[in-house]
């Protein structure tokens, strides 16, 4: 009787010591840059659409870093 009571009590106490489920363990899937683009702050003249439009926008914007397009090279 005593042993059964001890066993029951310990089972109840230890039952509270279960491991809590972990938080987030897998990372979210990222969207492509041309998907669901923010229209509010989009570059002037750029409309989010397909991959090709985005790539050509990137290429043309990249040339803004090349001042040899505006100045004559020696």
């Amino acid at each position, binding site marked *: 009787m005593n042993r059964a009571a001890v066993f029951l009590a310990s089972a109840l106490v230890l039952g509270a010591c279960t491991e809590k489920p972990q*938080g*987030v*363990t*897998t*990372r*979210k*899937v*990222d*969207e*492509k*840059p*041309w*998907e*669901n*683009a*923010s229209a*509010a*702050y*989009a*570059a002037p003249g*750029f409309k*989010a659409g397909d991959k090709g439009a*985005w*790539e050509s*926008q*990137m*290429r043309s*914007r*990249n*040339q*803004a*870093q*090349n*001042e*040899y397009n505006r100045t004559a*090279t*020696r």
Partner: protein
Amino acid sequence: MARMKFICDSERCIECNGCVTACKAEHDVPWGVNRRRVVTLNDGVPGEKSISVACMHCSDAPCMAVCPVDCFYRTDEGVVLHDKDVCIGCGYCSYACPFGAPQFPTNGTFGLRGKMDKCTFCAGGPEANGSQAEFEKYGRNRLAEGKLPACAEMCSTKALLGGDGDIVADIFRTRVLTRNKGSEIWGWGTAYGKPSQGGTAPAQPKTETSKS
């Protein structure tokens, strides 16, 4: 499309820290984190060279390799990003990175490290593009807006080039060939091919005469 890359032209960098300021302002970077830093060699000595350093978005990123919870991922454009919700703030990526790119905010109590923060190439993170959640965690997603990283676009001397690796390398190559200087730093033969393989011979730097 080629991988997204940065090149900092040390011949042009004037250590203005415009890139650092632009990055901090654009992304509301947490206190204690410098996503981009300007490193100066021989500071104060004539001939000092400065270079702007941030995450290099490595093709074989050591941070990604050592992360115990696998929170890093690489986009199709080669940008190395991570998920802050999965990050446990262990700091292992900070040890692994040779450039010191992964950093941790200093606003934690009792030395709490918090989530890792680093340069995202202005590509945000795995939240919805342009969402408030993405801005709060990772900063602005300029790539989704059709723009390039703020640091490169803000550079006053166009020292810091950022974008499509092919185009950026081409711009830098044009510069080196035009001014006849700057090829020795970046391993010309490795990047553009040795003359025996059909590449262009590197420009010989002019010897600088001292002006007294």
